[in-house]
């Protein structure tokens, strides 16, 4: 398969170019993440009004919803990177996917933990088999499988390709899993109301949520680029640019 | 005609060979030499498309093997370290399966091929009941069946007795004289009557 892509696409394929490019973006995303998350935390915890039904426990949504969104976006990103990596045999794309996996898994864990904790005052139990939580749990299993596959191969590039295939298979399955879990949930007494489906939220509530979502995205971008850069260094440790860079640092 | 251009292979951070170039024409034999671990098997696997850890290009006739794999694979017979034999199938069933894989394994009948490797009368014995040497011979019976122009053989003479080795050498000579190509590795002193054997020593290639 040969498709001609714009020049920047092939530049991204060069490890050194990607390393430098991400190095330029990194401080910007780090600053933005710090600012947005700082503002979002204070806004959500202190200045947003309490919910008339749930009181203050609803403040958990400011960390739950963004992590749930990120957990899914991260999987999409991994799938896109894996696809690019497999089609164009692009090492950098595989490394991006590999670096994203643990971040995605930790976002899923945050979403699960905060969702479960929120459930205690709302539903009266630490864990409820609610459709969204269950889908999240399965997403975590998918992440765990992919991470396990990466580490099972002694040859890193084979591991990356294997995990890329699995990621794409997982991507195809996610809609089916979601649909089946929702179906299953409606059969067994659905939860009366969920963390996210709420009647029209006032701006004092969704504005801080928006800030938090943006903050999470910036934080994710920062972590992803930093991890990718490090992985690039490890993988290219024989090449002249990495050796030059190390000599500079020492 | 098989052409190799700028072939490099690196495994586990070790360069096995770099910028390898050669052309093998019809009627030629290429023997790959080198110590254990010098990359002989890796080179053969790369030439068969069984390894992707390499850089460079391989051309069969004029076509890049990477672009037209089926055209190339149709012409290629590979005998590797593994016998490629199912233990619970009989010699005949194994060879018949190989024939479904390779349409060009049609030069003679299976019975004739088994007779040639001295396994006449064993065709309906499951392979697990055969000795290691006999299993090897089942695997090598492919060479009698083969009408493939290109043979790639990895240590074809292991587990064979003197007579068996001699027969296989003659078979290779016959194949090459008929316009075939053969690439092989072997520890044997290997000579073919009135055929020039080209040699490629991987130990002498890597300078670093």
């Amino acid at each position, binding site marked *: 398969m040969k498709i001609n892509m714009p020049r920047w696409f092939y530049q991204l394929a060069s490890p050194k170019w990607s390393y430098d490019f991400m190095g330029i973006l990194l401080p910007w995303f780090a600053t933005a993440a710090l600012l947005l998350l700082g503002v979002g*935390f204070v806004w959500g*915890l*202190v*200045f*947003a*009004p*309490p919910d008339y039904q749930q*009181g*203050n*426990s609803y*403040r*958990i949504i400011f*960390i*739950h919803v963004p*992590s749930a969104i990120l957990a899914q976006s991260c999987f999409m990103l991994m799938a896109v990177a894996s696809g690019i990596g497999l089609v164009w045999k692009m090492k950098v794309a595989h490394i991006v996917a590999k670096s994203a996996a*643990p*971040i995605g898994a*930790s976002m899923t*864990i*945050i979403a699960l*933990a*905060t969702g479960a*904790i*929120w459930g*205690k*005052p709302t539903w009266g139990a630490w864990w409820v088999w609610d459709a969204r939580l269950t889908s999240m749990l399965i997403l975590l299993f998918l992440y765990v499988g992919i991470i396990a596959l990466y580490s099972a191969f002694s040859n890193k590039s084979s591991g990356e390709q294997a995990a890329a295939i699995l990621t794409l298979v997982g991507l195809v399955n996610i809609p089916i899993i979601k649909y089946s879990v929702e179906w299953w949930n409606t059969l067994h007494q659905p939860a009366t109301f969920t963390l996210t489906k709420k009647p029209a939220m006032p701006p004092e509530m969704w504005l801080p949520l928006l800030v938090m979502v943006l903050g999470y995205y910036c*934080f994710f971008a920062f*972590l992803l680029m*930093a*991890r990718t850069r*490090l992985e690039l*260094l*490890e993988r290219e*440790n024989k090449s002249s640019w990495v050796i030059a860079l*190390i*000599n500079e*640092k*020492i | 005609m098989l052409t190799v251009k700028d072939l490099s292979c690196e495994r586990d951070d070790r360069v096995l060979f770099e910028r390898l170039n050669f052309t093998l024409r019809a009627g030629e034999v290429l023997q790959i030499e080198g110590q254990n671990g010098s990359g002989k098997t890796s080179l053969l696997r790369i030439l068969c498309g069984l390894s992707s850890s390499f850089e460079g290009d391989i051309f069969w006739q004029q076509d890049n093997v990477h672009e037209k794999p089926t055209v190339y694979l149709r012409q290629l017979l590979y005998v590797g370290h593994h016998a490629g034999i199912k233990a619970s199938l009989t010699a005949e069933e194994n060879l018949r399966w190989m024939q479904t894989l390779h349409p060009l394994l049609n030069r003679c009948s299976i019975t004739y091929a088994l007779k040639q490797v001295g396994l006449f009368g064993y065709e309906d014995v499951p392979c697990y009941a055969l000795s290691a040497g006999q299993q090897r011979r089942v695997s090598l019976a492919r060479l009698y069946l083969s009408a493939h122009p290109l043979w790639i053989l990895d240590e074809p003479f292991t587990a064979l007795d003197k007579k068996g080795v001699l027969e296989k050498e003659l078979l290779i000579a016959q194949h090459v004289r008929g316009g075939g190509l053969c690439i092989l590795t072997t520890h044997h002193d290997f000579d073919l009557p009135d055929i020039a054997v080209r040699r490629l020593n991987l130990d002498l290639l890597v300078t670093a």
Partner: protein
Amino acid sequence: MGYFNSFSDFLDMGGHALYVWLSYAITLLIFIANILSLWLKKRAFFNLAKRHAKREQRNS
């Protein structure tokens, strides 16, 4: 202070202190763990490179 009358009110979170603060603590912990692991891996990489460079120097 925002929607809370006092700091102790804020800490109490209308009786939901345990849930709210536990959630935020877990989230922060995971954030910090991510950054920390990154930093440790980076340090390990450069330490290894440093040792490697020293060995090369001694050998040459």
